[in-house]
C-alpha cells in the first residue's frame, strides 16, 4: 500500500475525476478508488469527507440528495463547470510534475 502522504496532494484530482465521470456518493467513491487501484491505495473516510467539504466550499462540486437506501438518503456530488475547469488545470499540472519527476527517477 502506497504511503498516503505522497498521494494526499492529489486527492482533489482523484475525487474530482471520479465525480466528473458521473455523479457519485461518498461510499461509492471510496469503493471505486479501491477497485481501480486494486486496493493498492485506499482512502480513509475521514479524509474523503474533508475533501468533499473543501471542494464544496470552493464550489467545484455541488451536493444533492438522492433516493433513499438502507434507511438513509444518499448525498450525491456533481461537478460544476468551475470544477471541470479546475480538473483540466490539475491534469495539465500533473503532466508537468510527472515529466519533472521522471527526469530524476526514470532509468534508475
Amino acid at each position, binding site marked *: 500500500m502506497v504511503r498516503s502522504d505522497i498521494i494526499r496532494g492529489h486527492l482533489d484530482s482523484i475525487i474530482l475525476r471520479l465525480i466528473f465521470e458521473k455523479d457519485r456518493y461518498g*461510499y461509492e467513491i471510496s469503493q471505486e478508488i479501491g477497485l481501480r487501484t486494486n486496493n493498492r491505495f485506499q482512502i480513509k*473516510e*475521514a*479524509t474523503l*469527507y*474533508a475533501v468533499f467539504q473543501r471542494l464544496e466550499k470552493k464550489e467545484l462540486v455541488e451536493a444533492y440528495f438522492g433516493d433513499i437506501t438502507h434507511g*438513509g438518503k444518499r*448525498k450525491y456530488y456533481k461537478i460544476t463547470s468551475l470544477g471541470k475547469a479546475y480538473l483540466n488545470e490539475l491534469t495539465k499540472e500533473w503532466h508537468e510534475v510527472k515529466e519533472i519527476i521522471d527526469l530524476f527517477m526514470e532509468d534508475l
Partner: protein
Amino acid sequence: MMKKIKNHIEELFKEIPRTQESELVKQEIIQNLEEKVIFLMESGKEEEDAINKAIVEFGDIDELKKELGVKNPDQKKSKLAKLNLAYSLCGSGLLIVLFLFINFYYTPNTIWFVYPTFGLLWWPLSMYFYWQRNK
C-alpha cells in the same frame, strides 16, 4: 445494530462545534458507513467484523475538524475586530464632535480641540490595524 457506528461517529464529532453544516456531514458519514457495513456483510463478513472494519478504516478525524471547526473562530475574530473598529470610529467621532462643540462654544478664540483629536485618533487607528491583521 447500527447503533455502534452512530455512537462512534457521535463520539468523534464531540469536539466539533454543532452547526447545521457539521450535522449534515455527520449524517452523511453515518449513512455511508452503514452502507459500507451492509456491503461488507453481503460479501460474507460477520456483523461484528463488518462494523469494526468500517470503524477502523474510517481514520483520523483531524482533517475534517480543520475543514469544519478551526476556520470558524478565525472568521468570528475578524467579525469582532470589524465591530471593534466600527465602535471605535463612532466613539472617537462623537468625542471629537463634543470637543469641537466645547471649543467653539466656550472658547471660540483659542483652537485647542486638535490636540485631544490627535490623541483620540489612536483608538480607531489601532483597531484598524487589529482588524487588518485578523482579516
